[in-house]
């Protein structure tokens, strides 16, 4: 069994040093008309490089681009699709972070790569493999306001988003993504929608090409859905352990599991985890997993933390791995 270290998605795009504030400054200057789109792209490129450098320096095996270019995890993706306009602010789950709500005005379609160019850039500058992360069709649909009659019933909207994401998965796999991550936090809030959710994930799994597919759920306790999530045709299941202290027991008691993304590192609080305590929990989980590897990662994206703490959390993951018994690195 190998325990690999990965990031769950975002990384803080601001820190305390002037270089770490360049993206913010450039966006503000561009709004005032003092910088160009090319200036912003250059600042974001530098931000992505720095985010990757931090992850590599902390010892991660699989990195993300930190979502440095994202306005938020909803409008950044939905806004690239035909048929969508972007509206007012809404709270993103139980965080103090706000996203802009997509409004569907017509049939949805993918007219260009959604995160494909971002992935290509990150891959070209990273010494470690890069994991592209997409918000899944169910969560996108849940965040969307519908003003187009055929989508008034929720199910066709979920399917329409899935149909837009399918070619993106294919393109990401063809561009060299070894593992593609879909984020579906919203399903934890609406477990009765599970049948339509699972159909959308099954549909997308048929479009993953040569890549492996990870599904991450967070911002809630996954226990009520755990058994059903295990049955999905995905390769990695990422879970948030911060909402239910008994989740480890559930996994240990629940029998063999597929490869897990173990979100035992709290991506929402600055307090650093106890190395021994977390390592012991991982020691209990790993024998129950039927796979060659698991991932240790934060419970969610890291942009809810200040930059220095986000980096400290990544370093802590490496220290925890070193304390896990019987581990081949």
């Amino acid at each position, binding site marked *: 069994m190998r325990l690999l270290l990965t990031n769950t998605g975002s990384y803080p795009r601001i820190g305390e040093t002037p270089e770490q504030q360049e993206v913010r400054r450039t966006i503000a200057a561009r709004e005032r008309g003092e910088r160009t789109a090319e200036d912003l792209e250059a600042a974001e490129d530098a931000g992505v490089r720095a985010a990757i450098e931090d992850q590599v320096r902390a010892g991660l095996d699989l990195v993300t681009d930190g979502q440095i270019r994202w306005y938020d995890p909803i409008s950044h993706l939905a806004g690239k699709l035909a048929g969508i306009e972007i509206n007012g602010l809404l709270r993103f*789950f139980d965080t103090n972070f*706000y996203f802009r709500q997509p409004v569907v005005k017509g049939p949805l379609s993918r007219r260009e790569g959604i995160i494909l160019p971002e992935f290509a850039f990150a891959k070209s500058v990273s010494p470690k493999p890069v994991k592209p992360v997409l918000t899944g069709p169910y969560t996108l649909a849940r965040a969307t306001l519908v003003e187009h009659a055929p989508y008034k019933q929720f199910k066709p909207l979920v399917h329409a988003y899935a149909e837009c994401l399918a070619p993106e998965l294919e393109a990401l796999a063809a561009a060299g993504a070894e593992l593609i991550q879909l984020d579906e936090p919203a399903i934890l809030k609406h477990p009765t929608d599970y049948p339509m959710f699972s159909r959308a994930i099954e549909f997308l799994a048929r479009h993953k090409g040569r890549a492996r597919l990870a599904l991450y759920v967070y911002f809630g306790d996954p226990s009520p859905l755990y058994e059903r999530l295990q049955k999905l045709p995905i390769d990695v299941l990422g879970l948030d352990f911060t909402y239910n202290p008994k989740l480890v027991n559930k996994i240990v008691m629940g029998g063999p599991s597929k490869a897990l993304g173990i979100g035992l590192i709290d991506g929402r609080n600055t307090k650093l985890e106890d190395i021994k305590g977390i390592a012991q929990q991982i020691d209990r989980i790993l024998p129950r997993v039927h796979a060659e590897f698991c991932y240790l990662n934060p419970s969610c994206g890291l942009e809810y933390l200040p930059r*220095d703490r986000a980096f400290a959390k990544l370093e802590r993951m490496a220290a925890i791995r070193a304390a896990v018994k019987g581990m081949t690195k």
Partner: protein
Amino acid sequence: MSRAKLAQLGIELPLLPVTAVGSYPKPDFVARARSDFARGKITAAELQQLEEKATAFWIEKQEELGVDVLVDGEQYRGDMVAYFAENLPGFHTGGLVRSYGNRYYRKPVIAGEVKWERPITVTWWKFAQGLTKKPVKGMLTGPYTVMDWSFNEFYPDRKSTCLALAAVIRKEVEALVAAGCKIIQIDEPALSVRPEELPIVIEAMHFVTYDLPAYFITHACYGAFEHIYPQMLEMPVHNFDLEMSNSSLDMLALFRKHPFTKDISFGATDSHSHIVEPVETVRQRVEQALEVLPKEAVWLDPDCGLKTRTVEEAVGKMRVIAEAARSLRG
């Protein structure tokens, strides 16, 4: 309806009283002074003088526009949680995290036992109230929101953190009441973030407001209220200040199913758009509200604080609300 409570406190208000949620934008000279102060270029006294000048500007502007229940505009505050954290032992200033888009704030860290040592907001409230005969609201952030918007490295869990903060905020409420403040707003914008925790929010608010002679308002916004309505009506306050316009008045549908039983400060303009809505749009929103809410229970204000707008936009948004109110009082 809490007109009786207001009468008991000696406060007379017209129908559809106009108020603001809390913050107004800082004029350039305050924004500059705050950054100069942070760099050690000016003294605290010099900064305060400019903050007082800006507060006086907003009091005068609100009177001119016909606002009925005023706010001091929070010219001396940064973020609504960080401001209290900076003034309460037990908190550390945290690093920057993103709020939305290109906006960031310093999220506080609870690093030890939180204590109340002296009044935080009373001097500013007295200053503002001294400039006007109209009532000025005391403005605080509620314990649940302070808990939810801070990192916690000290208390064992969310509930114990929230209740410890409630004891601290109660002391500030008592200090405002002792100073003569009769309308106190305790904001809980995090109210709906975890519906299963609503009982904790309510318990903490009881602790803060219990048996005190004041009219209490709580503000909430950008939440999934459908998951906590009508249970949220159990909050021990007289008035709920709610964002309505940004969400296309969605909540009115909930009120049709289950009557809204408190006074409401009805968010009649979107606080996060640069566009000042025409008076007619605001009027129509209020007319829709009055189909389901009794007129005596409705106050009017923007969806949320206006600090992210320009001074002109903020004045414009308050003006259209005041004009709509006048035309609908009839």
